[in-house]
């Protein structure tokens, strides 16, 4: 038994290493070549340099695109999390007639190809005569992010006893104060997860942004445009490496919040 399990274990380990390698080695090329003293992305490594980072910082168009993406991501995250919060609370707390159908309907954007969504919104905006800008990108991104927010927040709301809110009302707090003193703190881990998730979804979204951005490029659009010029590529790698570090930090925070939230979810269920 033991040896059998051991052999299976070795196979599994090899598989896991291969899988993780396949997943992460290409990603690790990014920081590696961002410090490589050559325009060409080929082995052997030519030498160490930080010039690409300097070039990146001097490239105002790239920084503008980065700022645009951060702005779009942040606003999209807040907007879709607020909408998701209201929807999740309604769907878990009240008997909404046709609630399931409604839920399926709001999740639809998850299943429609982004390219179809992008074109449809573009046609709609053109028909209405709305000029393209970052605002239209935010609208498009919110559309695809709300289902993510609802899913994350609903699982959080499902976990807590509705009599907690009633207890607060019973102890003399009105609806708003009850939201502030009970619902919000208990939903907070879900809110943070939702903000991070929707931010990341928006930040690296390309297709919809490409259709709706007008003259203001977001970062993915800008990078796409730069791929034509080989000499600009190393700076893109430098930026990519920085984003990699930042998103790793974000994911770690998100995971910490989630597991922390799980812990006091046990508290709530065990109540």
């Amino acid at each position, binding site marked *: 038994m033991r040896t059998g399990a051991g052999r299976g274990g070795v196979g599994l380990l090899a598989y896991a290493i291969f899988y993780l390698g396949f997943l992460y080695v290409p990603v690790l090329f990014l920081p590696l070549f961002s410090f490589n003293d050559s325009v060409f992305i080929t082995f052997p490594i030519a030498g160490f340099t930080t010039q690409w980072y300097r070039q990146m910082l001097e490239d105002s168009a790239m920084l503008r695109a980065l700022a645009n993406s951060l702005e779009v991501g942040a606003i999209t995250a807040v907007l879709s999390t607020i909408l998701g919060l209201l929807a999740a609370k309604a769907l878990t707390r009240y008997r909404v007639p046709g609630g399931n159908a409604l839920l399926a309907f709001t999740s639809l954007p998850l299943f429609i190809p982004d390219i179809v969504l992008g074109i449809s919104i573009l046609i709609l905006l053109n028909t209405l005569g709305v000029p393209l800008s970052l605002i239209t990108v935010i609208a498009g991104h919110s559309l695809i992010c709300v289902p993510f927010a609802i899913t994350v927040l609903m699982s959080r709301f499902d976990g*807590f*006893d509705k*009599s*907690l809110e*009633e*207890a*607060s*009302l*019973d*102890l*003399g*707090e*009105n609806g708003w*104060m009850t939201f502030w*003193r*009970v619902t919000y*703190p*208990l939903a907070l881990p879900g809110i943070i997860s939702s903000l991070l998730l929707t931010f990341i979804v928006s930040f690296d979204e390309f297709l919809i942004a490409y259709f709706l951005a007008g003259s203001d490029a977001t970062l993915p659009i800008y990078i796409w445009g730069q791929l034509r010029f080989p000499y600009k590529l190393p700076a893109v790698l430098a930026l990519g490496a920085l984003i990699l570090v930042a998103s790793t930090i974000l994911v770690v925070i998100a995971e910490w919040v989630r597991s922390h939230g799980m812990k*006091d979810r*046990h*508290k*709530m269920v*065990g*109540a």
Partner: protein
Amino acid sequence: MSDEDFIRIDRVTKRFGNVVAVDDANLSIRRGEFFSLLGPSGCGKTTLLRMIAGFEFPTQGELYVEGARITDTPPHLRPSNMVFQSYAIFPHLDVFDNIAYGLRRARLKKTELAARVNDALAMIKLEGFGARRVDELSGGQRQRVALARALVCRPKVLLLDEPLGALDKRLRESMQIELRQLQKSVGITFVFVTHDQEEALSMSDRIAVMSSGKILQVAAPRLLYEEPNCREVADFIGTINFFDGKVLAPDTVDAGPIGTVHAATADSPGGKTLVALRPEKIVLAADPVPGAIRGKVIATAYLGERSHYTVAIPGREEPIAVSGQNAEKIVAKGHSPGDTVYLSWADGAAVLLPCD
């Protein structure tokens, strides 16, 4: 408004779609009393309590506390506080903040707030537990925190929805006594929901028995047990034997196999009635007694301080339940299955109920 009508429930009906959860309920609860709503699961106790708390609103009818109409007052403006069946302790707050929750709005000075919370902690015998996380508490302690959290607000009415339901038997019994003492010492009107008839009988000043949304009888425990007003109440509270009776005279009823029974009846001679007799009112004797009915023991159950007997009598298919105190040691004696016994009872032991 008199103290009799401290809480008044006036022809209240609550429907959920087709379900009539509470059906035309009328109730007056006195100031300072321990009042219980008793009935089987699903009979509408929680719904009635939640209407008093303000979490449900009547489909019809009115509610008053101290003469003031509260029928559509939202819960946070009502003079009542509630102990929830699940306790609903806030998981993100420690014990102190849970108890202080309802006081934060009162804008008390910090020292006064702390004093009141600490008094409440002392009342529930959890001194020094203020900084505890609530997930470190046992079921009984959570129950006490829920109680303190409600009482610290000094409500006019405390509503309790099966608060002892989740506790084990031992703890439950000691909490029954403690809760009763607490109610007497704080003097607040308690409205207590339970499906446990012994609990209701032992704790309450008065009890309302409910069934399928209707209030059947409101009375003190002793009266409810000795003078039930209908078959359902008699059946729900304790064990009871029923016999079909025919009225012979204003104070005499022919109860078939058990002979004639003397009890006052409003029915005219010839009318039908239901004769109800509690098991412990029946005396069993091994030797013939004048006027006794002969029967045969079918089964016995020894319960320590008393024994239950199932006795068959001629002319009746259903056996009769009899229970007797074991005043003497019955190691050798006692009635065994197969024994012939003689059943008798005192005049007035039987109750006459309307047939339904």
